[in-house]
């Protein structure tokens, strides 16, 4: 009994730490960039915008800084936070669903579908909103296809799901390559998009992704105990009162919604959905009731830092954030493989 109390105390500590780390991350990343802005100024600008509190601010903050913080950095950082949390949560769900620590939100073909959608949009009707829209729809289309292929007698065996996901993924990647091949002039834009990044993302993007990711994370959290029990195997989970097929279907829907939305607004950012669940599991253990919220927090924090690096490391040129996440992700992943 004592041990369990101690454990939950330890978890509370971890949470408080992660939340503080998140706030600090937002603060620091707001201040760094091609123009350095002090934390004091940032606080001023933000309080200035909040009703009631703004009476405390006597002098108007510098207009130029206001613009940078409120219109450029804040939406971008919040979006990175949102996407990182979403991908990490979807990653936990996929790893739990497949009972395989090597699974990621992309294994079931959503990212390949989205890339195809984006390629199609760039080719046929390029536009600020057509690309995310088509990417989102094609991502969901891909998972729908994968699900239909895997379904047999009302059941979806995870092995089939995984293989069908890989097959459909390859298929869409091939078509995307074909589209790139025949449309030489847009290749650069598409490649850049596929590497993933938050360059030039605005409040619109954040607001577009918010409902899907904002709904998806708690929806997955809702099934955290089922996810725990499902680690014993699907039949054992059924014997413990879990309606496995229903939970599988819903988890697949929620993580696909999150993933498609994330990819639509920020491209295919690799490794967040794979390594964040791993790292979090090492810190808080495999209990999904803790793992899901902790992964969401850590995923958001990680991606904000990666994005801050992406936009400052060779400033004023921006790197696609996917390069940064993979640069950190791949070595860590190899380390995990070796440690297994």
């Amino acid at each position, binding site marked *: *009994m004592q*041990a*369990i109390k101690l454990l939950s105390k330890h978890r509370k500590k971890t949470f408080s730490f992660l939340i503080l780390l998140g706030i600090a991350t937002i603060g620091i990343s707001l201040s760094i960039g091609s123009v350095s802005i002090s934390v004091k100024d940032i606080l001023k600008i933000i309080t200035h915008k909040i009703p009631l509190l703004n009476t405390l601010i006597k002098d108007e903050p510098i207009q130029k800084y206001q613009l940078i913080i409120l219109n450029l950095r804040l939406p971008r950082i919040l979006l990175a936070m949102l996407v990182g949390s979403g991908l990490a949560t979807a990653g936990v769900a996929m790893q739990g669903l497949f*009972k*395989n*620590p090597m699974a990621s939100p992309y294994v079931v073909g959503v990212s390949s579908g989205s890339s195809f959608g984006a390629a199609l949009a760039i080719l046929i009707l390029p536009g600020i909103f057509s690309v995310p829209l088509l990417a989102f729809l094609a991502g969901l289309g891909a998972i729908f296809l994968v699900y239909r292929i895997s379904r047999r*007698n009302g059941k979806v065996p995870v092995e089939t799901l995984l293989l069908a996901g890989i097959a459909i993924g390859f298929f869409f990647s091939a078509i995307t390559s074909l589209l790139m091949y025949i449309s030489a002039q847009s290749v650069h834009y598409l490649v850049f998009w596929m590497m993933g990044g938050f360059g030039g993302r605005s409040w619109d993007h954040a607001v577009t992704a918010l409902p899907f990711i904002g709904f998806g994370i708690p929806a997955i959290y*809702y099934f955290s*105990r089922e996810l*725990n*029990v499902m*680690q*014993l*195997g699907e*039949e*054992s989970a*059924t*014997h*413990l*009162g*879990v*309606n496995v097929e229903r939970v599988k279907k819903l988890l697949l829907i929620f993580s696909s919604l999150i993933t498609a939305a994330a990819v639509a607004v920020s491209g295919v950012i690799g490794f967040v959905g794979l390594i964040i669940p791993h790292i979090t*599991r090492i810190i808080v*253990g*495999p*209990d999904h009731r803790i793992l899901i919220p902790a992964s969401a927090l850590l995923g958001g924090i990680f991606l904000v830092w990666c994005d801050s690096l992406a936009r400052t490391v060779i400033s004023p040129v921006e790197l696609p954030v996917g390069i940064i996440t993979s640069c950190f992700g791949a070595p860590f992943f190899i380390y995990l493989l070796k440690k297994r």
Partner: protein
Amino acid sequence: MLKIEKISCSLDNTLILKDVDFKVNRGDFLGIVGPNGSGKTTLLRAVSGILPLIKGKVYLEGEDVSQMDKKKIAKKIAMVPQNTFINFPFTAMEVVMMGRNPYLGRFEREGRKDLDKAKESMILTKTWGLRNRKVTKISGGELQRVIIAQALAQDTQILFLDEPTAHLDINHELEILSLITRLNREKLLTVVLVTHNLNLAARYCRKLILLKKGEIYARGEVEDILTPENIKSVFHIRALVKKHPLTGSIYTLPIYFNGKNKTAKGKIHLICGGGSGSSLLRRLWESGFEVTTGVLNVLDADFETATLLNIPTVGEAPFSPITSESYQKNVEMMEGSKVVILTEVPFGEGNLLNLRAVEQALKEGMKVIVINKIPVQERDYTKGKATRIFEDLRKDGAKLVKNEEEAISLIENEL
């Protein structure tokens, strides 16, 4: 409590269960036995609502299982599968706590009652010491005990066990099954145990269902089910069925038999005694020869072996010398044998007539093989009489060999 009404079930379009029909009452300890692929595990999966039925119904306390909520079933039936793989490093305690899942509301945390239940089950299964260990780092047998603790923590009236002790060493097997027997007796826990191990089933179960190719071949009390006839018909082996003097339970001892036509390989008569012929009797019998033996005293080790294997034997009263009547029967028994074998039996006045029988065999033109590693002089308690007859046998053409292997290879070559 459980009523299974003529259920049929198929996997990948192959019919696995056909019209299986039985009842389980409160406090039963039912064993489901049968060979691999006879549908034992499928039966458990079908009864607990995992597999869809193509025919029939399963009623749990009067309710149709296929229509029941999974959580409701989980409060009544717990299942221990053959093996469990867990990829993520949960602690043993966390895994046992998962057994409380059916009782918890959506966002409810495990409370004092759940903790107590988990602790109690872990102490019973001797896994309390493992509570903080990661299930990815404990042995298969330890994990299986943790899973059994989980099933007990589930606090159900019915417990399904599917080969639960396949991964356990003998002392934990004994411990777990004794524990389950105790829960069955004291708390009227209803147990359904699936196993291919007949002795395990005989020892712990009170009733058995014997499955053959997806159908119930026999059902009833252990003594009525585990008969050599049933075992032969379902497992295609011959088995001895005896009551164990220590446990009082029935136990079976399978004997390999390749099933070849006995008369086709020829008849062999063995003259032995004092255990000198037992293993040769068995080996010849297993190789498919028609074997006879005699004269043997009742209670002699070789006599016991022959009886167990159903080998025709000329018997003599215990500790008595061979009478001329028995000698005559023995000579008659020998008739038609292609080979007569004499093992390294010690000779006294009482069994000299057996040596005479070998002499007779040679006279009648049968091949005689004599195993003689220990020289006959050393086992002659007749003041040289046996040795003299022995010498005659050698002169008349009996083949001397060093051991059983030589004897068998000689026979294989001759016949």
